[in-house]
């Protein structure tokens, strides 16, 4: 029986490894100087892979990915942490029992539903409210992405806040601090590593998120810094173009390079986030003992 479990465990590990190997193998043909020059240094930076003269600059797409990620995090981080602080420090226990599952339920909403919502409803609201020229822009896409990130920030931050030993709070109250002072100046700093880790993990999710941005971002590869332009992300480009690409061509290699880039970034950010959390857990347990 234990044998079966360990086989299952190893299968997962082998899969991850094989996926990495496969992605890397398809990327290998473009890991050379001329291809990298075409991806990163081409002037003007344009992504037009099916043009008569293919243009494969990834600059506008990387920029688009970062714009959506930044807007998403700017929305999700404060909201997620504030919600976590509220539910762990201020909410009456009964309310907390409602808030937590409801926010975690948000994580279960398929991203295609979120994308559809942003495409049809959110974009119209935002345009009516702010008079944006483009309905589908970085703000619309980033906000929709932010909704998907809130549960990640919330759940991990909340776990971190709850793990802060009671003795910290009691010591703070004993010194005459109010609840707000205790929450902001004692509990939050003590849980800072978890909060930070939640940001890192949310970043990893944001970089790789596909469907929301494919639907709500407008998919125009524009090299600009304004948040009012449409954007196109790495993941959305892979999803939209992999279907018809000529296998083995430069365009194919470029898409796989994007995949590898995403893989490496999310791998690093997720590992780092997990490491911070584990580090903090062991320290908290040590502190409480």
């Amino acid at each position, binding site marked *: 029986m234990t044998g079966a479990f360990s086989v299952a465990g190893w299968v997962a590990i082998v899969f991850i490894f094989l996926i990495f190997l496969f992605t890397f193998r398809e990327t290998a043909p473009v890991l050379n100087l001329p291809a990298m020059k075409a991806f990163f240094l081409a002037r003007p930076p*344009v*992504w*037009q*892979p*099916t*043009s*008569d003269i293919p*243009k494969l600059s990834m600059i*506008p797409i990387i920029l688009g990915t970062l714009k959506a990620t930044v807007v998403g995090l700017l929305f999700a981080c404060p909201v997620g942490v504030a919600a976590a602080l509220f539910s762990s420090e201020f909410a009456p226990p009964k309310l907390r029992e409602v808030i937590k*599952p409801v926010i*975690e339920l948000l*994580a*279960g909403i*398929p*991203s*295609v539903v979120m994308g559809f919502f942003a495409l*049809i409803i959110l*974009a*119209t609201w935002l345009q009516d409210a702010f008079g944006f*020229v*483009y*309905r*589908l822009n970085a703000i619309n896409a980033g906000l929709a992405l932010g909704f998907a990130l809130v549960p990640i920030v919330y*759940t991990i931050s909340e*776990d971190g806040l709850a793990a802060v030993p009671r003795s910290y709070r009691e010591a703070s109250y004993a010194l005459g601090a109010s609840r707000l002072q205790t929450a902001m100046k004692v509990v939050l700093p003590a849980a800072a590593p978890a909060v930070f880790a939640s940001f890192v993990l949310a970043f990893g999710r944001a970089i790789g998120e596909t*469907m929301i941005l*494919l639907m709500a971002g*407008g*998919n*125009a*590869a*524009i*090299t600009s810094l304004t948040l009012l*332009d*449409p954007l*196109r992300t790495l993941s959305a480009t892979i*999803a*939209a*173009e992999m*279907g*018809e690409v000529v296998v083995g061509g430069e365009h194919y290699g470029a898409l796989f390079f994007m995949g590898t880039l995403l893989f490496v970034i999310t791998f690093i950010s997720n590992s780092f986030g997990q490491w911070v959390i584990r580090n903090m857990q062991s320290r908290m347990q040590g502190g409480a003992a």
Partner: protein
Amino acid sequence: MKQITRGVFTIVIVALVACGGGERREGAVTPAPAAPGKPLTIKGSDTMVILVQRLAEEYMKGHAGDLVQVTGGGSGTGIAAFINGTTDLAMASRPMKDDEKQKAAAARGAEVVERPVALDSLAVFVHEANPVAQLTLAQIRDIFQGKATNWKQVGGGDAPIVLYGRESSSGTYDYFREHVLNKEDFSPRVQTLQGTAAIINAISKDKNGIGYGGIAYAKDVKPIAIAAAGAAPVAPSEATVADGTYPLSRKLFFYHAANAPERVTKFVQWSLTPEAQALVSKVGYFPLPK
């Protein structure tokens, strides 16, 4: 408990993502068609999906027991699937290229048969409230290449032009690039949406929007009259498409292998009958001229 809940969510998400992924690229995993009695699979142009689905429904009514499955994905996707042997019949809104025909012939062991099934006029759409009612081909080219960025440059009000288009796997994209842009590149500001229906939807909500697509999809948007070089503007209609005065009309094709099983040829032949061609105009396309 917390861990379990999170685990369950993760499983749900993974499952949903897996389903979502499978849905979009299902053509790639469909087993190769073989023995008769199997459903006829048709894949390709998103422009043709609504037409061929109607044809298939009508066909199945008259031929009990025959099953026809129609999926979109784009002309390029359909042709690729045809070459790979994962679909019986490819539908394409652009003619197959010579190298594609050779590849298909080599893979299928028989020549490729091309059957035009209907005419489509590629319309350029704007918001219903847009005062612009006609444009020359050159103006449309300037707009989609980003040389004209304000409606007042082409006779409209003072407002920025917002561009909508299709992704590069689309036959409509190819056709437009070839016949309107003279094979030059689109402006990077074109927002690429998945399917003509999405473009129509976006333009119906965007008073500064402009986009292109099959005329049959036009709903709550205004198709504009187009003037070829040195000619008067012509609005898309059955008459102007049939007599060739409307500058942007094209044939819609079926492609199958010459050695295709009977279920394929039977459907293709039926689609050229007057009964089926009447359906073509009902859906909003134009029947082949007699």
